[in-house]
């Protein structure tokens, strides 16, 4: 009895090793791409959107023969929205799974944490971490070699809505309410303030809150007192319904400007349409674009829920990465993480859902990629304009 138990335990311990070995041996006829996403935490809506898009892309690619006869396989790890989990996942993908490249999370904090680690591990990460600190080394001002952004940066997004508010809506006096503990919110707030003050507008009040806070009426009451024409609220999903509803509760009539998370979190299933009425925000894709329809129908049929911005931009980021791998093969019949990195720098006019994606080798971020300005009407977003974000100065 004891012997058989011992044998069982030994086999049980060996099983993961065998699985691991099998995974690695697949390398010769498979191309392995890592995927680091929140699949069960508070931001799983974003993580699932990217993962689903990548899986859809992969299925089509493999059905058409893969790359040079090799099938692509995606290895996904769940971050549960914790930065440390993202770091662990990247190390495991590089050291154990030996992936060629990684599709990164749409989470700024994680991109910032991964950037210096990727410099050491030398496996490229293409993701949607919008904070510019995830692609630019703030000490040197140069781009991180292995980090690439597949959508407009938060700076570009903030400038797009600020420019629209000043030039098209003719607004001058702004207030701002954001989460000072969240890199995403801060990375939107700072360039917004910089753009407004450099272009003839004024910031009449700047209020912040903490991640654990749920009640923002103290801050909003101060904002109301400062009488802004518009309030910029670049916040995270969970905070969007609360900030909008509490502003409404206080009878605030100023124009509200939001960020690219307002779909779906400001729409009627989450936020009372009364509170979101008239809100303007920038978005990566045009929901009224007919080109998106086929993708969104297919996505809905496959996963049972609607595609969001990160599904489209996730598709674009993954597609740009696949194209870089294809170019490496075409040039030298083989591919390494460094070759993919070199080719990512040459990404030009990739036909994505956001528009034509070109990545600047100087910033590792897109150039000339448009943004759509939307407005909430009756709990639904309506398309107003397509803008090219003003360049950073």
């Amino acid at each position, binding site marked *: 009895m004891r012997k058989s138990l011992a044998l069982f335990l030994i086999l049980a311990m060996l099983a993961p090793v065998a699985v691991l070995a099998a995974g690695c041996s697949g390398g010769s006829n498979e191309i392995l791409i890592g995927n680091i996403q929140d699949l069960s935490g*508070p931001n799983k809506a974003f993580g699932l959107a990217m993962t689903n898009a990548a899986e859809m892309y992969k299925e089509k690619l493999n059905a058409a023969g893969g790359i040079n006869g090799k099938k692509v396989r995606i290895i996904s790890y769940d971050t549960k929205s914790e930065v440390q989990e993202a770091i662990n996942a990247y190390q495991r993908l590089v050291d154990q799974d030996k992936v060629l490249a990684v599709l990164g999370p749409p989470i700024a904090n994680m991109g910032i944490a991964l950037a210096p680690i990727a410099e050491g591990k030398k496996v490229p990460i293409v993701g949607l971490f919008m904070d510019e600190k995830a692609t630019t080394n703030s000490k040197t001002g140069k781009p991180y070699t292995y980090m690439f952004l597949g959508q407009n940066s938060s700076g570009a997004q903030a400038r797009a809505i600020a420019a629209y508010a000043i030039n098209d809506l003719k607004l001058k006096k702004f207030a701002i309410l954001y989460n000072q503990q969240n890199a995403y919110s801060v990375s939107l707030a700072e360039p917004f303030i910089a753009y407004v003050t450099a272009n003839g507008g004024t910031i009449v009040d700047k*209020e912040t809150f903490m991640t654990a806070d749920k009640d923002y*009426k*103290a*801050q909003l009451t101060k904002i*109301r007192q400062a009488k802004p024409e518009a309030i910029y609220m670049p916040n995270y999903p969970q905070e969007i319904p609360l900030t909008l509803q509490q502003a409404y509760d206080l*009878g605030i009539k100023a124009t509200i400007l939001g960020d690219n998370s307002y779909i779906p979190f400001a729409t009627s299933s989450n936020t009372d349409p009364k509170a979101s009425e008239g809100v303007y925000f920038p978005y990566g894709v045009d929901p009224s674009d007919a080109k998106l329809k086929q993708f969104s129908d297919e996505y809905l049929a496959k996963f049972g829920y609607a595609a969001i911005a990160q599904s489209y931009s996730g598709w674009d980021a993954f597609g740009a990465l696949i194209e870089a791998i294809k170019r490496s093969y075409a040039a030298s019949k083989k591919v390494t993480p460094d070759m993919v990195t070199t080719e990512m720098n040459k990404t030009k006019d990739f036909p994505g859902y956001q528009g034509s994606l070109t990545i600047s080798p100087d910033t590792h971020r897109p150039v000339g990629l448009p943004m759509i300005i939307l407005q909430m009407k009756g709990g639904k977003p309506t398309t107003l304009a397509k803008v090219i974000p003003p360049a950073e100065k």
Partner: protein
Amino acid sequence: MGDSFWSVVVQQIVNGVSLGAVYALIAVGFALVFNVLKFSNFSHGGVLAISAYVGYFAALKLHLSLIPVLLVGTLAGGLIACGVEFVAFRSIRKKRGQLVYFFVTSVTMLMLLEQVLVIFFGASFFTYPRLISLTTLTIGQVSISVLYVLMMVASAIAFGVLAWALRFTRVGIAIRAASNDLITTNLMGVNVDFIVLATFFVSGLLAGLSGVLLGMSYTLYPQIGQLVVKGFIASVLGGLGSLVGAALGALALGVVEVLLISVMGSGLSPAVIFAMMVIFLLVRPQGFAGVSFQEKA
């Protein structure tokens, strides 16, 4: 809008009182268990969180309206709290375990109940279906949401019923006797197991009510029960175990929080609140209500 200085001050006090009303509902349920068993029952937060989800699904799947949802959530809270007492605390009490065991168990139960929610519903957030239209009452330049008014009314009704029940019903009188001295009450022939269970049930009703109201006014997420910390601070301020003290402490906490945020911003205000609490306890360890327990755990 032309906000004058005083209208802003009044608005901030209204904001603070409405926040304090939320804390009060948590604090009183929390204080009730302390009153009888003399330990800080953090599992109250777990009961609150699960009831909030029960209310959410009652509204979403059964399409119940506001009052039935409140009742379902409240009752769920009472039943869950009884379950917690039965599973987690009864055997410690039977073995006459030290107070620290109760305390540790209560924190463990909070985490356990939270994790149960994460397992079943994930860590993402939900928003309650709109049971009550977003409507605001405006008096002069001061606005208050109807939902907050509802919350204050619900708190007031709950406190009224609780005060009446503790004073005039047989179970209520027995709970008060037990809070004075559990062992003697037992010797007097009162069924202490039943009284403790009743205490948890009533405390759970309050947790359930506050859970649904919190879920409606904020969003729903597994960690919503951690707001019990605010109830704890409020009941310490009020004098642990005193129900009136807890309610007053909660209102004071809400107003102070809002005023501090408006004066010094959200980054600094939590640190200042905790510093104020330390100083307050140095000066007046018995809290507002003047009841002091040596057995604080």
